């Protein structure tokens, strides 16, 4: 293996150790990538006061943002509030909007910051809710349906829900920056550079964060992967 990869490896580890979430000034996605992003044009219409343009952006991205926030805080109601907060924040700052990256990078940077603040404010460890259906209120007892062994579909479904709950618990145990990087990359499908822009760090630090997150998932879910 060439010296190039070795130097990349060293840079990755050093970034992870020394500047895990450091703010890197002037870092943004490649100009060609965001100039061709149609959402940037729509956001510029929002800046000029076009409320229909804002509705267009909300309709296009709201579901994905709610899903991202939901994986983060594991609470449907709170995830919806966080998604709304993110869009409101973007709306309030519309006059100051200057495109420097793809719109999704900008949007997920706002959402990620809100989610990280939320994690800092409240302890979400171990506070899980069913993956399907509404969350249970405090003291409320959920109705548990017993799986009918004669119906394999129901059994599979139950197993799927259990697996999902288990994976979500492992995700919740991850350090916030690892969780952010993993969700942005794997669930939202952002490129490493976009994840780096969202988290205000370097691309090599993102690789390291995702590597460590996947290592933890592999260890915790070893029986499901064998």
């Amino acid at each position, binding site marked *: *293996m*060439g010296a*190039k*990869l*070795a130097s*990349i*490896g060293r840079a*990755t580890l050093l970034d992870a150790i020394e500047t895990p979430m450091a703010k890197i000034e002037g870092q943004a996605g490649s100009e060609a990538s965001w100039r061709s992003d149609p959402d940037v044009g729509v956001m510029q219409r929002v800046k000029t006061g076009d409320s229909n343009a804002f509705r267009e952006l*909300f309709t296009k991205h*709201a*579901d994905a943002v*709610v*899903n991202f926030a*939901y*994986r983060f805080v594991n609470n*449907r*109601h709170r995830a*919806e509030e966080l*998604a*709304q907060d993110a*869009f*409101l924040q973007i*709306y*309030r700052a519309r006059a100051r909007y200057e495109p420097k990256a793809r719109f999704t990078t900008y949007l997920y940077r706002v959402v990620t910051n809100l989610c990280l603040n939320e994690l800092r404010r409240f302890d979400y460890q171990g506070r899980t809710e069913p*993956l399907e259906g509404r969350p249970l209120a405090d003291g409320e007892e959920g109705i548990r349906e017993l799986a009918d062994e004669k119906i394999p579909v129901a059994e599979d479904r139950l197993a*799927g829900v259990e*697996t*999902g709950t*288990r*994976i*979500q618990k492992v995700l919740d145990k991850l350090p916030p920056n690892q969780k952010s990087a993993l969700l942005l*990359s*794997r*669930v939202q499908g952002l*490129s*490493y550079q976009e994840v780096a822009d969202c988290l205000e760090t370097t691309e090599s630090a993102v*690789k*390291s964060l*995702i*590597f460590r997150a*996947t290592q933890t*998932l*592999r260890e915790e*879910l070893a029986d*499901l*992967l064998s």
Partner: protein
Amino acid sequence: MKDCETIRVELPGYANGKLGDDFVAPVRAHLQSCAACRAELGQLERLDALLLEALPPITPSASFASRFANRLAAEAGDSESHSDARGWLGWLLQPWLIPVAAVALLALVMLQPWFADHSTSVFPVPVVGGSPSTVAAAKKPASDAKLAERSTPKVTLAANNPPSELLQRPELFVDYSVIRDLDILESGQGDGESHAG
């Protein structure tokens, strides 16, 4: 082994196609010769599939969009009322008004000693005396005052310069003439006194 450590950091990106072209070629070359890294890649691919399968996307609640529309409408309303408030504040904070206010404040501070010097003519100075009779004598006509001067020693103070020990004794600031007048009224001599005065 060193190569494996370096390559494994790149494997998650390789597994889901997020690696840049510069990185793909060396990873691919290494995988051809390293069974352990190939096994790790297989696990990462299974993990990706598991994440997608076990964490299906959720659908926001039916009221999500309408709740946001309400918040947005409230936000728009707030910004309008803020702009009204800014109209009033804008008048108050006009650029020319700020230096004028600053000059006025400065003048007030600089003239404060002058106000202090002339405060005797504006504000009444509390009457300070050794006894009720001394104070009463001060208010009487000159002949009576002279008599009073002979009977009791008079405490004379510069009105603008009271000794600090006196300032710490508020009881000395009581206007005893009021008490005396009340005593006179109670004893029924008020009329005669007032006529005499």
